[in-house]
């Protein structure tokens, strides 16, 4: 019954053929068609701006005070594109291949090839908007390598690539607002989808400032609301990043795809205590120069600088000599966890490993000595020169580390530990980015489609902008072309009235629990269950326990949550309560999905399924499918399988040794 609608024909021609044959909407009709875009990060802002340019009537919604604040802004490292500007052998096929392999053969060939095809146009578009990418002295765009690929295809703007791309999309969006094509609703949160006669017809949104509920009609609704890493409480996501929009859609009939596929990023600043509210990433680019190690002796309490070279275990270089410190994220994270679990961890919590730049500082210092033709140079002078080079490359990241930890990473190695960073899972969508509910679309991290079981570095920004600038403008026309016969539905329609009542009743129920536990404390408990039992390593017994514990937590939440303030005012605690209630339900489904997938692949590591050397062991004979879950009631889901077919690439065991 699940039809991914992948066009027939050769992989190379699928997207071209699709574009050549999809339905079009003429300009006069576009003006009569209304599109709602929820979320204004890279996917949402780029989609809303582009649809506005095409002439559709667009409304955008974001819970932040401005579209520019969406969490895409925090992406540091870069954006991939198969431009082959470096003449180093890159091509559309290579980017496609690396993405499929990086995803451990759990993504669709058709979608990923399209992503790779449009990647170059994204860079062109961003340059035209005035995105100040890093450049070489000749004036042309600069590239760097990323995430263990063998070519340099990552475009960047220092350590703030996400910020610059989002500001580009935001400016394009604000321009459409000034032209009257888009209406912007900030500090608004979507709390339900309205479905009439099987089609999505609008949303119920809450004005977060007044607490008032609003009904908005749309011929189509685009959910561009990002990922759900905050189900773990501690993650690199922003504090208010949430799953509510996609979860409401799920409860209204949209299936969830691979919900348990979570990316744990290896290099984050470790937890410092129970007060910790979020975690901060240190860009993957640091692994180009930093060496990761722990002491060779267990429970070694000496300071890092007092541990001699021969007593250090550079475990990534030891285990993976071919890729060393540049193994993919899932592999690096598991290796750090293994060392800490065995008692080799460092710092007061023992849940950290070192990321050390001292060798890079000396290496760069010596290069400077040679470049500048200096003579009679002491070791100390070499180090001073080397530090300057490191500062130029990573200064902003080193500053961020020092602000948070109070330690100077030029003198002492950084302490790092893996943290939840991205969710590959999300709403199931077909090739047109439509969910299982007609007229309801999911773009960017909110959908499940392109990264399989593990996302490569610098690919999230690429996918968000591909979906918004270059995919949805075509695919939505294929749906809306048949909608020109349908006049806008009044928001007095019984379906709108009923949806608003459901939302209103739920808010009232939450306020009236008047229990003893704060939203934050319940969220922390959910996070602990998820991290310990559905985190970096999972097993059947733990997952079964987690499901029971989460069901229990849900009961506790609805009988004992305490929310201050009033319902008809600005009340961030009430907003947070609604989000945590949805996270609890989603957490249960994630555990069910992880339990069902009796194999290890990418970021999903089932302890029962590993090679003798402790690597992920896939079972392609049984699990070469997308796990797609249909909501059937409070704790009930039905599994549908979308079989994955590899026509061009032959899946094999990933090997980084």
């Amino acid at each position, binding site marked *: 019954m699940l039809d991914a609608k992948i066009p027939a024909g050769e992989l190379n021609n699928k997207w071209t053929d699709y574009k050549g044959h999809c339905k079009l909407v003429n300009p006069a009709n576009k003006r009569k068609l209304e599109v709602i875009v929820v979320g204004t990060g890279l996917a949402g802002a780029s989609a809303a701006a582009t649809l506005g340019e095409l002439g559709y009537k667009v409304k955008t919604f974001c819970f932040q005070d401005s579209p520019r604040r969406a969490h895409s802004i925090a992406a540091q490292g870069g954006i991939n594109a198969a431009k082959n500007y470096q003449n180093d052998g890159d091509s559309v096929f290579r980017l496609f291949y690396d993405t499929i392999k990086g995803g451990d053969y759990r993504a669709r060939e058709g979608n990923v090839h399209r992503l790779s095809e449009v990647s170059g146009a994204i860079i*062109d578009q961003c340059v035209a908007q005035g995105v100040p990418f890093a450049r070489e002295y000749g004036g042309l765009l600069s590239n760097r390598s990323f995430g263990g690929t063998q070519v340099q295809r990552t475009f960047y703007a220092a350590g703030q690539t996400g910020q610059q791309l989002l500001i580009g999309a935001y400016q394009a969006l*604000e321009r459409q607002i000034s032209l009257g094509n888009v209406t912007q609703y900030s500090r608004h949160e979507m709390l339900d989808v309205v479905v009439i006669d099987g089609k999505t017809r609008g949303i119920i949104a809450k004005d977060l400032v007044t607490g008032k509920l609003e009904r908005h009609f749309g011929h189509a609704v685009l959910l561009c609301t990002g990922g759900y890493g905050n189900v773990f409480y501690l993650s690199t996501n922003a504090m208010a990043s949430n799953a509510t929009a996609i979860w409401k859609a799920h409860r209204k009939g949209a299936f969830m795809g691979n919900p348990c596929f979570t990316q744990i990023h290896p290099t984050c600043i470790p937890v410092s205590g129970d007060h910790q509210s979020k975690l901060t990433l240190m860009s993957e680019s640091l692994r180009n120069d930093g060496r990761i190690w722990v002491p060779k002796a267990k429970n070694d309490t000496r300071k890092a600088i007092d541990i001699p070279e021969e007593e250090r275990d550079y475990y990534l270089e030891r285990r993976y000599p071919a890729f060393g410190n540049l193994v993919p994220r899932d592999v690096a994270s598991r290796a750090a966890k293994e060392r800490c679990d065995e008692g080799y961890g460092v710092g007061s919590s023992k849940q950290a490993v070192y990321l050390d730049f001292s060798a890079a500082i000396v290496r760069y210092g010596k290069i400077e000595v040679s470049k500048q033709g200096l003579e009679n140079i002491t070791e100390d002078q070499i180090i001073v020169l080397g530090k300057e080079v490191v500062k130029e490359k990573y200064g902003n990241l080193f500053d961020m580390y020092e602000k948070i930890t109070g330690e100077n990473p030029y003198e002492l190695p950084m302490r790092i530990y893996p943290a939840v960073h991205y969710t590959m899972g999300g709403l199931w969508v077909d090739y047109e980015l439509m969910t299982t509910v007609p007229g309801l679309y999911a773009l960017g991290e909110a959908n499940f489609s392109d990264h399989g079981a593990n996302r490569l570095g610098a690919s999230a920004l690429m996918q968000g902008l591909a979906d918004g600038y270059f995919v949805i403008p075509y695919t939505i026309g294929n749906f809306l072309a048949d909608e020109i016969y349908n006049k806008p539905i009044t928001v007095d329609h019984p379906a709108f009235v009923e949806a608003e009542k459901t939302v209103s009743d739920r808010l009232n129920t939450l306020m009236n629990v008047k229990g003893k536990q704060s939203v934050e404390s319940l969220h922390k408990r959910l996070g602990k269950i998820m991290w310990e039992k559905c985190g970096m390593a999972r097993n059947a017994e733990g997952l079964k326990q987690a499901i029971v514990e989460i069901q229990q937590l849900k009961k506790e939440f609805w009988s004992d949550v305490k929310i201050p303030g009033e319902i008809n005012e600005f009340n961030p605690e009430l907003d947070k309560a609604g989000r945590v209630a949805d996270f609890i339900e989603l957490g249960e489904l994630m555990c069910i999905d992880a339990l069902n997938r009796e194999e290890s692949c990418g970021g999903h590591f089932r302890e029962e399924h590993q090679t003798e050397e402790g690597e992920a062991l896939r079972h392609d004979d049984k699990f070469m499918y997308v796990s797609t879950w249909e909501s059937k009631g409070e704790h009930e889901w039905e599994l549908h399988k979308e079989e994955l077919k590899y026509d061009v690439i032959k899946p094999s065991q990933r090997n980084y040794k």
Partner: protein
Amino acid sequence: MEHYNMNLTLKVWRQKNKEDKGGFQTFQVKDISSEMSFLEMLDILNEQLINEGKDAIAFDHDCREGICGTCSLYINGKPHGEWKGNTTCQLHMRAFKDGETITIEPWRANAFPVIKDLVVDRSSFDRIIQAGGYVSVNTGNAMDGNCLPIDKNRADDSFAAAMCIGCGACVAACKNSSAMLFVSAKVSHLALLPQGEPEKRSRVMNMIAQMDKEGFGACTNTGACEATCPKEISLSNISRLNKEYLFASLTADK
């Protein structure tokens, strides 16, 4: 680094809504670790208030890594607190000593009305961008990215201006509540690039007009904005804006 715990007195601005007059309330917090961030300290105060059956203090925050521009606050009279080139979310408690009293207020500016407690409305910044803070190029119009070589130094200067996070600290720091540093950062970002060239005159004129309309004050070159800016946006951007504005005024179509 040695860690320590501290007890603090917090004087916090409370204001129920835009119409309410508002005033300070005093709270005590105990055993605050020097390793916490400033906002984590406020989280603890809010947990305390919720447990006591009181309303939590509303404050804006989101990414907590200094890039989204959502957090604000005057901390002891300084936007984003004492540390240089820093946002409130990145301020850590080792900046304070045991027994200290800390005063916390919302941004104060007519163009940033208070929504509740420490939360203000900065939508005026969006409207300034809508007035011209963009390049008018539709999706699909672009030529190859490398068809347009740009001098590296100019690109770097443009990037340095484009780093603005739109937090509003420049307005909060300015005795006139001027938004000149914010506006000049956007004008400079685009004026320094060839992509911004065709609209350079209308952009600066329209953005300045909108800034005035929103009720921001005039710039008197005190430099408080630059000293406060968490991204250390340079005052030289204001000089560039003035130059662009003068040029646009002199050459405008009458």
